[in-house]
């Protein structure tokens, strides 16, 4: 029990650090994924915005859902939410606590992706290059191009090697401008997220500390109870299987005694522990029959009460072995 207690304490005290660790790994993975990702702006008027905003917003959604999937406590929350009331009331505060702590952890990787994307600048450059203010940055009046043409030219800003609008607006000027806007947005986003996190963490002790302690205790309790129940069921299943199999072999031996008029198993003496473990099956034919009947006719999931060994009930179906009559014991 001591060993179990130590393991439990370790898991419990470290469950939070375990979750924090997974959360940190996902944040690093999202930064790494972004740097490994080969960003290819299409440089076409309507596709740019779709591609840029898609790369900015779709992976965070996937990372957020992945954060929930990788969190073991999601199934626990769902179970607690959907169970019938029974004899134990349901506490909405506990459910809210569990959901909030999961959602907070799941939001870190998407926030890292969005920050890294905005600070890098390629997505915003790609998405908003057609909306560039040409009047302030370049020569709006000297080109004589239609608006559609202007948009087509501007859409090629992210692709330096095919850009042909140097007289309209210089490529470096446009890229610097868009990147500056993107980085400003990125830092504002980072500041906003850290401020929100700080407020959430620091306002809690000021207002709802007692309720928080209660919700935290009961959410840990639900988790521990679930683990302990699974363990108890596993122990029970192990004992059940052991007794079931023992009774199967004993039933087989009783059937053999009935069919072959062999003497029933003698009460074992101390020196005969090994033959007790043989459970009355002492030759190849009998063992083969036991194995075959284990496959064709498994015993019912019903343990007999302790008492005289009852048969397995197939004395009438038992086939004699096909080998010659058994040799007399040597």
């Amino acid at each position, binding site marked *: 029990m001591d060993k179990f207690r130590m393991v*439990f304490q370790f898991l419990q005290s470290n469950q939070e650090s375990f979750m924090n660790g997974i959360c940190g790994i996902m944040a690093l993975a999202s930064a790494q994924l972004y740097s490994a990702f080969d960003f290819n702006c299409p440089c076409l008027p309507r596709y740019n915005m779709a591609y840029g905003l898609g790369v900015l917003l779709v992976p965070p959604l996937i990372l957020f859902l992945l954060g929930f999937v990788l969190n073991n406590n999601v199934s626990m929350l769902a179970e607690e939410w959907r169970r019938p009331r029974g004899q134990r009331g349901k506490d909405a505060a506990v459910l809210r606590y569990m959901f909030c702590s999961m959602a907070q952890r799941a939001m870190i990787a998407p926030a890292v992706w969005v920050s890294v994307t905005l600070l*890098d600048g390629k997505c915003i450059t790609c998405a908003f290059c057609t909306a560039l203010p040409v009047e302030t940055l370049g020569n709006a009046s000297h080109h004589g191009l239609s608006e559609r043409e202007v948009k087509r030219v501007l859409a090629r800003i992210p692709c330096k090697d095919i850009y042909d609008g140097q007289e309209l607006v210089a490529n470096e000027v446009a890229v610097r401008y868009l990147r500056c806007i993107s980085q400003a947005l990125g830092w504002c986003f*980072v500041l906003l997220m850290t401020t929100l996190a700080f407020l959430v963490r620091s306002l809690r002790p000021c207002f709802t500390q007692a309720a928080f302690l209660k919700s935290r205790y009961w959410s840990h309790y639900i988790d521990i109870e679930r683990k302990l129940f699974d363990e108890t069921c596993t122990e029970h299943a192990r004992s059940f299987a052991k007794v079931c199999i023992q009774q199967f072999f004993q039933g087989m031996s009783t059937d053999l005694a009935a069919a072959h008029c062999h003497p029933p198993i003698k009460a074992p003496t101390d020196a005969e522990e090994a033959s007790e473990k043989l459970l009355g099956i002492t030759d190849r034919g009998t063992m083969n029959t036991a194995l075959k009947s284990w496959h064709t006719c498994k015993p019912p999931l019903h343990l007999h009460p302790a008492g005289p060994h009852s048969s397995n009930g197939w004395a009438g179906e038992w086939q004699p072995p096909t080998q010659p009559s058994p040799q007399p014991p040597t």
Partner: protein
Amino acid sequence: MDRFRMIFQYFQSNSESVMNGICGLLALASVKIYTCLDFSCPCLPRYNMAYGLGIMFVPPIALFLCGLILNRQSLVMLEEWRRPQGRRRKDLAVIRYMCCSIMQRAMIAPAVWIVVTLLDGKCLICAFSSSVDPEKFVGFANITPAQAQELLSKVPCKEDELVRNSTSRRAVSRYLRCWSQALGWSILLILIIAAFLARWLRPCFNQAALLQTRHWSNYIDIEQKIFEETCCEHSRLFAHKCILHFFESMRKEIRQHSFDLPRERDGEEGEEDLLHGITDQDQVNKLLKTWYYEKPPLDVS
């Protein structure tokens, strides 16, 4: 008991080192983020100052808040501050001590960012290139103010075609970088002198009171950790008892409904004990179903 004592000592000595470690990691992270950041000054008249000063001051605020969030002791301090008095007096000196130590640690990463920014120089060049007096530099002296402004705002961008090979651009850049580095080193010197004085002069003032406040702030930290551990241990025992009661009640219910004669189980321990009287597929199914539909009440009296 020995194990508990070892754990106590571990927490006592390592709570501070854990916080120092986090503080150091944040400082390194701030340097790393600065070097990874692709600084691109917009080189446009009004945008330069906003961008340059923004990059210099917004990340430190975010780093400061991160330093507060990642520090466990800030929660402990807030709880101690906001708790009702109850039967334990509140000592404001302890709260002040904790607040000071938290703030000091949280300010290291922002200070590192600002110093690195100033020593590198790009931010200041970007922010103040338009504010330089054009008369001081040969290439900008004999042109209209509007043109001078435009050229000066392009100084941070080396590759821009207007100022690509201009010696005056390099002169302005060197001038601003010199100011930036001087400012950076001065700030670093002031911070280190302040830290040195704070550490050296503290023992001269009220050392006894300091020892007391430090002791009680450690105590509050440890007390909270042990409370959380005790709650975990308690909930484990509670769950264990609750599940055993559940299996017992199932066994009683099964005995009531089946008409088996009560069996004496003298000396049959081991497997029968672990089976809790549940020996049938239907009984197991019923147990699992009842566990879901009717969890036992939270009452193990």
